[in-house]
Structure formats: C-alpha cells, structure tokens
C-alpha cells in the first residue's frame, strides 16, 4: 500500500513540527537555559597570537582568587582528539603551541562571569611568537615553522583521483575550457551560540547537556579525553537553536566544561559569546576551484578535470571529508565519462574549518554550474538544454562508484523551467534584468560511519502501552530540521494512529539507542528507516495477536484509525490499545526495535577516499533565479527563486519547503554578501552586524517545488531535503547576473564593487 492511500495518515500532510509549541511560546529549554544547583560559570583563555610557542604559563594567581573553583591548563589535558580517527590533532587546552588567534590556552570555573573573567586576566602566559601561515597558497609551499609535525608544507591531506582518461576526453572534445573560481570563507551563524553544561555525580559519572548535532560522538570523545569508561558518560541534547554543521563535531567548550566540572566538583556551564562562536567556526573554507572541461559541439561533456584547494585552518577537523565530497560530487550530477580530481587541504593559522550545510559540494557546484553556463554560451546552447544533454541514466553507478537508484533531476529541471517561463525569458529580458538556472545534488546520509563500526547507523526502539500511545526512543538529533517530527509521522502512519498519540524521547545516550547524529543529511533516511522498521515490527506483533483474537490470518487484518478489523468488515473492530495488551502479554508494554544499515552496494568503490561520497540515495535540485542589477551601483536584487527539490517523498511538505527556503536564504547570503575577513589572523567581522547573513527580511519570493522520485530504499520513498538545495542557488544567481549584464562572476561573494569592476573590464574589452 502506498503512503498516500492510507486515510488520515500524517505522512504527506503539512503538520506543524512536534516541538513548535514549546519553541514559539518560549517554554522550550536550550542548553543555556539549564541550571543545576551550584552551577559555576566556565570561561576560556584564548590565544592572542596566531602562531606561538608557550614558553611559560603561570595560573597560580587565578586559582587564588576567591570564588574560583577550578583552573585547568594544557598540562592536565594531554589526550588528543578530533572528529576523524585520522585527525586527532586537537587538545582541550594547548600544550606547547597555540595555532590560531582564539586557540584554547586554559579554562577557569568560578561563581560568576565577572570572577571568571578576572581569573583569566590573572593567568600569565609567556609566548614565543612564530611566523604565522595566513595565506592559503603561500602556506602550502612553506618549508619551516610548520603548523603540525608530520604535515610537510602544511598540507593536511591531498587526494588524487582519476577515472577514465581525461586526456583522451579532451582530445575527443570540440571545445576545452578552463576557469578559476575563488570562494570566500563563510560560517554557519546559527542563532544559538554553543553552550554546554557538565555535571559529575557522586559516583564519578558525567552528564553533559550540550548544543550538539552529534551526541554519540561527543560521548565517545568525552570518554576518551577525560579518560573515563564510555558507560560513565551520558550526553543529552536539549533543544538546539540551529547547527548547520557547526555543531557536528566536538567543540572545545564541550570538553572544557567537563574537565572543569571534574576539577571543581561542581556543575560548570560554558556559553560562548558571539565572538567566541565566530572563532570556534568550523564553517566552509575559502576554496579555490580550477576546472578544465571538454565538450563536444552538441553539448555532450567528454571530460572534467578539477583542482580544488581549501584553506582548512589550524586543525584537521572534518577537512579530509570536505576534500573528498568536493571531488566525489564534482561529476556525479551528470554523466561525464572521464574525471580527474586533485584536492589539497591546507593548514593555516586560523580557526579550523569544518562541515557546513552542503558540506564539500557547495563551492565546487557553484564553480561547475557557472563554468557549464560559460561553456553553453561558447557553444550557443541554451543553459537548460546543455544540462538535459548530460543527464545520467539510472539505475546506474557513476564512474567514481556512486550508486544511483532514483534521479529526479530531469523533472526538477523541467519543473523550474516551466514555472519560471524560462524559454520566454532567457536572453530576452531588458538589459539589467536576467534569469539563470543551475542544479545540485546531495547525499541522503553518508553510507559509511565516521568511526568504522559494524553497528547499524541508526536504531529506534518503540514502546506501545495499553492506552494506545507509542513512545519512540531514538538517538537522532533534532536541531530544528524536523528530525523528531518526521519519525513521529512515520510511526503514526505505520500504526494507523493520530500524531498526538506518538511521544518521542530523543538524543540521550543513556536512554536512547545509537544514532550517529545530524550530519550528512542522514536523519530522515536512516533514522526514518529505523523508525519505519520498528513500527512495522510492532505492527506485525499486534496483527499476529489480533489474528488469534479474530481467528483469521493476519494478512487479512487492517490497522487503521486506532482500530483493527478484517478487511471489508469495519463493524467488528478491536481497538489498538486492546490489541497492544494482547500482543504484549504477559507484559503490559509492547516493545519493538528497528534499525538501519546501509546496503553493501551503496558503500562505494575500493580506491583511497572511496568511502566518502557514497550514500544510499541522492537528492536533486534545480533552481532558476531572476535578478536585477543596478549597473550604476552594482547592487544586485534577487527578485525570485524557483526551487525544485527531489526529496523522494515529502513526508512533511511543510518542513521540506521550510528546508528548501532556508537553503535558498543561506545560499543567497554566501552568493552576495557573506565573507569572513581576516587580517593578520584576526577576524575583522566577528559579529552579526559586521558578518552579514541574509534574513527573512531580505528574502526574495521563493517558489518551492517538490519533486517526488520515490527512492526504493528511502523510508516511504523519502530522501534528503535539508542541504542539497543550497548549492544550486549560488550559480543560479551568478548565471542570472550574466544574463542581465553580460559578466561572469567567478569570485564569491558577488559584491557590488566586484560587479562594477567586472562591468568596467567588460567595457574596456568590448569598448561598449
């Protein structure tokens, strides 16, 4: 039975999120709202130097200050950590060296913020200042004063992939084009700053409440760095006010709060200031993308060669994963027979970059989709048409080993072209007005876990009681994207009960089964599949019990609207609550478990780096942007965005549209105004007034269009919805600007001054 045919099912309905009431009324509790008796304020001493050796550190005067309960320095925190097993290069507090302005030198816990700040001022640190590596391209040629041992030329990681034969592909081409793109470093700017409350009980067990996307990995890192058994560490995720990837790895304050709480013998809470959030960062790196592409006269691509350099900051973080996504997703939206990729992740003395919405794909997709429009212009082919001519033919496996079963991209292209009246507008609008198209795609969850493991990626336990209430126990992390709501909808749908009969207990490592976290757009697909499996198992048990009761085979029974009856005989029905008790006997609670593991065929190829990029399913997006450009001031106004997104099946169209709109805003911010500006390792815009990101007030008209390609392995057909749309909006805008005023914008953000400069250059070149 398909999802849509169940009457009164919440699946496919525009239901509000299950936690919206508490959020809208202000009743909901975020990490910073939580207080335990005796809670101390934790503060961190940050490095004022971009690169320096710590000669001497004297914290004795801080400890003597009345009201100070703990002072911790790097000597007491020797264990290195990092989100990737191959990148354990961070410490809670620096030991011998600081590697960026903002690096963590020491922590204090005190009765008040004022005392804690005074204690920080009393810590004396003697630094030997080292030359700092601040420029991406210079850093990767550096010979001395390297940032980490064992990283020659400050290169954290490089990857070199070659599939097919690009030289042969270029030979077969009628046109070979080379372009270079430069994308500024941008950050998440989640409204909720990072916040962590840590508390030890009398038995030495640690509980941490933190604004995290990855409670499970945080639990493991706390246990490792505090040298405690994992069973003694409990991580609880309260409401989270936005993550966008910035909370998808362990952030120093999460460990600092715990280590301070242990030493102080009292709970410690640390909440970052906005400036600290900017320096904790882990956002999208500055990225240089060089693309060389061969194409036949008919628009068919014959080869692509990409060289990508990313400025990763001072630590590894997710860097290698970012590099690999950039390579793996370079070609996989289209059918390109020959592909080469060279990726370099470079260390510099700045805060570490990391995962940010559309992790690894956004800058490369902007470059490729703009480059593709340049190629189309050179050949005189319509930009929508050149995309149609290079489509994949699923089911298929791309040349780099990504298995694709569902592919709504062609429909996305058609739907935005039709909705925007593309063929009537492209190239036909008055000077200053333009329309552009671009596509994107993204994973529905990484097929391989961050830490190798044979455990399922997600497990959901389900409990049904004699009142007919279902309680979901899930490790999945709601961060505002609708994780809890989608699981509740799936369970309600499968059990034929109303949404308000489903309760959810989530993201508490002591109570809920393992889920790897909210990253790589994995939750709807993986936790959704686990919830679906749990609900189906519960339903099987219930129908078996009811089969005995009715004395008919279970296959003839229907579970609908909280009742069970034989098909065609609604009059004689058994209430679900009663059936639950029959099935649970001799218990009074019926328990079912479901889990999700990725199929072996979806886990990718065997070459080095093949593990990142593969996903059980991919979302697809196509967008059309309409812009107007004031050629006197260079100001760009985005008038309208048509955004088609293939999410497989919209379990909740309201939240899918919300994700698409949010992606568009975030993408517009990066396209037109966001940039972290550094000067000598210091961030010049570490505040929301100076670092400007788009808000609802700046929103153009957005027309979301949902495309449902029904993935055979997605829960009820569903795929990713939270990230893929972001990558399409930037090139759609760049391509629309070309249509409006005839200049290609190859540097992000596309500021008014850059537009004016490009227009001047065009005038010099053409004399018009």
């Amino acid at each position, binding site marked *: 039975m398909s999802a849509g045919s169940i009457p009164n099912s919440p699946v496919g309905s525009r239901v509000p999120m299950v936690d919206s009431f508490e959020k809208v009324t202000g009743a909901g509790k975020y990490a910073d709202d939580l207080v335990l008796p005796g809670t101390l304020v934790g503060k961190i001493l940050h490095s004022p130097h971009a690169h320096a050796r710590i000669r001497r550190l004297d914290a004795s005067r801080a400890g003597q200050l009345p009201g100070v309960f703990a002072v911790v320095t790097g000597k007491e925190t020797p264990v290195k950590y990092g989100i990737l097993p191959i990148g354990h290069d961070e410490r809670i507090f620096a030991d011998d060296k600081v590697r960026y302005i903002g690096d963590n030198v020491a922590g204090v816990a005190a009765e008040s913020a004022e005392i804690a700040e005074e204690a920080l001022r009393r810590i004396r640190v003697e630094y030997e200042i080292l030359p700092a590596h601040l420029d991406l391209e210079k850093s990767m040629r550096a010979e001395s004063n390297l940032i980490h041992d064992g990283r020659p030329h400050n290169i954290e990681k490089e990857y070199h992939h070659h599939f097919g034969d690009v030289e042969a592909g270029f030979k077969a081409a009628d046109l070979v084009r080379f372009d270079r793109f430069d994308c500024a470093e941008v950050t998440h700017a989640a409204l909720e700053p990072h916040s962590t409350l840590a508390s030890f009980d009398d038995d030495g067990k640690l509980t941490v409440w933190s604004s995290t996307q990855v409670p499970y990995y945080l639990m493991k890192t706390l246990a490792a760095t505090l040298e405690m058994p994992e069973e003694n560490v409990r991580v609880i995720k309260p409401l989270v006010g936005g993550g966008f990837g910035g909370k998808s790895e362990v952030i120093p304050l999460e460990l600092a709060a715990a280590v301070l709480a242990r030493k102080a013998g009292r709970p410690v809470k640390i909440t970052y200031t906005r400036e600290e959030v900017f320096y904790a960062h882990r956002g999208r790196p500055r990225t240089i993308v060089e693309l060389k592409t061969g194409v036949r006269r008919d628009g068919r691509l014959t080869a692509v060669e990409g060289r990508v350099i990313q400025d990763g900051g001072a630590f590894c973080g997710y860097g290698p994963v970012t590099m690999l996504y950039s390579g793996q997703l370079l070609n996989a939206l289209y059918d390109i027979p020959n592909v080469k990729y060279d990726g370099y992740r470079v260390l510099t003395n700045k805060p570490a970059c990391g995962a940010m919405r559309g992790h690894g794909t956004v800058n490369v997709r902007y470059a490729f989709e703009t480059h593709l429009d340049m190629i189309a212009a050179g050949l005189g082919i319509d930009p929508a048409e050149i995309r149609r001519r290079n489509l994949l033919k699923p089911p298929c496996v791309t040349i780099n080993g990504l298995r694709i079963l569902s592919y709504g991209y062609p429909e996305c292209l058609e739907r935005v072209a039709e909705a925007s009246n593309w063929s009537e507008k492209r190239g036909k609008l008055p000077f200053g007005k333009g329309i552009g198209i671009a596509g994107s795609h993204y994973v529905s969850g990484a097929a391989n876990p961050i830490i190798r493991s044979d455990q399922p990626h997600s497990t959901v336990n389900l409990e049904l009681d004699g009142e007919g209430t279902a309680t979901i126990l899930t490790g999945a992390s709601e961060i505002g994207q609708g994780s809890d709501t989608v699981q509740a909808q799936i369970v309600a749908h499968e059990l034929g009960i109303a949404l308000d009969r489903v309760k959810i207990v989530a993201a508490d490592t002591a109570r809920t089964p393992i889920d790897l976290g909210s990253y790589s757009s994995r939750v709807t697909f993986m936790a959704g599949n686990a919830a679906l499996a749990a609900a189906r198992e519960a339903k099987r048990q219930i129908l078996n019990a009811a089969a005995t009761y009715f004395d008919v085979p279970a296959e003839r029974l229907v579970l609908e609207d909280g009742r069970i009856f034989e098909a065609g005989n609604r009059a004689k029905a058994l209430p679900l609550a009663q059936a639950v008790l029959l099935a649970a006997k001799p218990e009074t609670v019926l328990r079912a478990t479901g889990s999700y593991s990725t199929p072996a065929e979806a886990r990718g190829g065997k070459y080095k780096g093949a593990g990142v990029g593969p996903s059980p399913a991919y979302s697809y997006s196509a967008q059309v942007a309409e812009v107007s450009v004031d050629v*006197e001031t260079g100001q760009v106004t985005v008038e309208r965005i048509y955004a088609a997104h293939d999410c497989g099946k919209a379990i909740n169209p309201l939240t899918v549209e919300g994700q698409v709109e949010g992606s568009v805003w975030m993408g517009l911010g990066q396209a037109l105004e966001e940039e972290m500006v550094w000067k000598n390792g210091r961030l010049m815009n570490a505040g929301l007034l100076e670092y400007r990101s788009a808000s609802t007030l*700046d929103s153009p008209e957005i027309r979301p269009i949902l495309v449902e390609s029904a993935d055979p392995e997605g829960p009820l057909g569903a795929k990713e919805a939270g990230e893929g749309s972001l990558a399409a909006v930037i090139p759609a805008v760049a391509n629309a600007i070309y249509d409006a005023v005839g200049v290609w914008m190859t540097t992000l953000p596309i500021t008014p*001054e850059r537009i004016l400069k490009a227009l001047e250059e065009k005038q010099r070149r053409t004399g018009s």
Partner: protein
Amino acid sequence: MISESFEYHVPKTIEEALGMIGEFGDESKVLAGGHSLLPMMKLRLASPKHLIDIGRIGALRYIRESEGQLELGALTTHFEIESSSLLKSKCPLLPETAREIGDVQVCNRGTLGGSLVHADPAADWPAAMLAVEAEMVARGPHGERKIRARDFFVDLMATALQSDELLTAIRVSPLPARTGDAYLKLHHPASGFAVVGVAVRLTLAESGSIGEARVGVTGVGAKPYRAEETERLLAGKSPTAKRLEEAAAHAADGVDANSDLYASGDYRKHLAAVYARRAIQRAAERAAGR
C-alpha cells in the same frame, strides 16, 4: 557586554539638566533615546560616570510652527517626525528622511537631537539638516545660541556643541514655492545606516532653470558636508539629465572617504555621485510639480 557602572540622574526640567551637566562636566553623558549611547556604553567605547537622562523632560518633545519657522524639540522621535502631518505638508524632506532610519525600535525610541549630537558619520539626519539649512538651538549656562547646520558638524562624532550645552531644538524653514526636496540612501545591509545618503533641496527659478540647490551628503567622509562644487555647477542651469550628471559627478570632490568591510572609499565616492544625481533629479521633478 555589560557597561561600566555609572550613576543615573533624571532631571525634570531643562534648567535642572543644565545644572547637572555643569556639575559633572566631562564625566557625564546626556541620555536621550539611548539608541546610540547605550550600545557604545555596552561596548565600553563610552564609560561615563554620570548618565543624565533627559528623556522625561516633556518640554523638549514637540513639533510646532512659530514665526514662519518649523521648530522641533530635540527629544522628538524619528517616528513622530515621520508621521507628522505638519512636516509632511511644510517640510516633507524630514518625514522622508525619518522613514529611512533604522528599524521600528530605533524609530520609536531614537530622537532627532540624540542622533545629531552623536554625529555618527553614517547617520541620516545630518544630510537633511544641511539641505534645509537647519539651525540648532543650544542652551548653556550663559543662555541660548543658534548654530547653523554647516557649522554644527565638526568632525567624526564631534559637534560644535560645548560640553556645558544642551541641544534643545532644531529650527528649519518650510519648503518655499517651486521647491522640491528628496533624500536617497544606500542602506548598509546589516545596520541600516547610510553607506551613502544624499539630501537635496532644490528651487527652480520662474524660467525653469535651477535657482538654488543645496546638497547634503552623509556616509562618505568623517563628517557630513554640503557638496559645494555640485551646488555651484547646478545654479542657474536648466535641469537636463546631462547637466545633473555632470554636477553630481563632483559630489565627493576632495573628500577623504571612509573605507570599511562593506564599501571601499572609492566605491563610496562613486555612490555619492550616483545618489546625488538621483536625489537632485527627484528634487527637480518635485520642484517642477509645485
């Protein structure tokens, strides 16, 4: 951040306020709407020991017509100016400028006098004050004096107001016949301040050529200014598109332009010319319609 601690005073009359200003001198700051001073105190860019809150002196909050002049009390809020029917008919430049200021909170609490005394280089009011040749009325221990707008703005966040004086009122002349005005600005996308703002009051002669044009510019340099070369090039000319463009091109002549993360100095000067031309054009059209 939290400001340094301070002593808070609430005078009920202008005289009482002047007494306090005299008593505490440089250690004090006058608080009006608080939308410029309080953020500076929180950033500890200002740390007065005494804060003199004049916000409850009702006698400083009015808009009235007297002796053929329009007079606004220093505590008049941006919103009161924006919604004043008297100003809309007699000096529409002021409501038009008020509409471009900040957000709802700033418009409801922020005051004309507070903004002028603060003298932020990106504030909107100075451009309009220059274009209408406003007079600032200052009260001090030795009585009252009037300061012309072009003498009032001295430098970055510095005015001609003495440390023992209080700005009490702003006087402007109503719009004469055959005169139009306009204020246009480029909003900073985050703060809403003027990256560049240009206010124009332009009078047409009987012949249809430009009698007099006054062009006030804010946002470009350390202090707001009259674009004198532009004004000179407009006087006596017929307002053709070409003439306006030629004159507006000089709107930032000789100005040492501000440069920040959003706009370089060169871009600001470029914008000054573009916005000057647009504002002059609009003012000329309005003048022709009166």
